[in-house]
């Protein structure tokens, strides 16, 4: 039997391909808690290098999920990252799917092996 939601589709179909990558999920999760965050804050929170974060942010920006704002504070250049409305919606949908999958997997584990199969 394949676990499915009320539409008959397995919730993994609701996972967002852009957000699903672990680093991008971490970046989006960090940005979900605030209006905007400085690039260096996100880099430290997610524990990756500047270049790795730049690459992942570029993907998220291209998908329309993250906005990037550059500016100065005094003479120091600053880069701010923010989740767009579209990005926040996609993240919430992704989280809902993850939660549903976790619930189904827990339920399957409790009822015994062989009750869950990949579609």
């Amino acid at each position, binding site marked *: 039997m394949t676990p499915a939601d009320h539409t008959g589709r397995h919730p*993994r179909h609701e996972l967002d391909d852009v957000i699903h990558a672990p680093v991008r999920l971490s970046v989006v999760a960090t940005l979900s808690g605030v209006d905007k965050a400085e690039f260096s804050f996100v880099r430290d929170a997610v524990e990756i290098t500047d270049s790795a974060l730049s690459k992942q942010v570029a993907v998220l920006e291209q998908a329309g999920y993250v906005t990037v704002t550059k500016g100065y504070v005094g003479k120091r250049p600053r880069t701010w990252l923010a989740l767009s409305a579209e990005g926040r919606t996609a993240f919430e949908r992704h989280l809902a799917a993850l*939660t549903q999958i976790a619930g189904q997997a827990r339920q399957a584990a409790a009822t015994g092996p062989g009750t869950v199969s990949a579609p």
Partner: protein
Amino acid sequence: MDPMTSSPSAPTVQLDEVARLSGAARRSSRWYRTYLLVFAAASFVLAVATGLLAGTPGVAVVTGLWAAFVAVSSVWVVRRPTAIRGMKQLHLGVMLGWTAAWVVTVVVGSTVFPGQLGWWVLGGVLTAAAPVAGAVLAHRRTA
């Protein structure tokens, strides 16, 4: 078999990580709550000092100290690494409320209650009300 669909740990670990990162980012923006509480306390002192020193050169000193406080705190604010969710609207609301309370305090205090310290203490409470309310909202949003 796809571990995402069969193992309860993979999505659960991801959800835990999401909660951890999102919570850490939220907590990092608690500085705004602190800022508003300091602003409220300074507003109260400003109103009471203005009332106490009305008609003396001390008012100019108090005004200068207030301007310095606003300048220093503004620089501190723009250097924070995160901004609380809905900060623009929240800050605008607090500043509009503070401005209205300050105008009422000064206009009524200097025309109806000149020299009456009680009014200026009340004015201090009025001007502190908007930033305190903002701090409460900020606390809830960063909990």
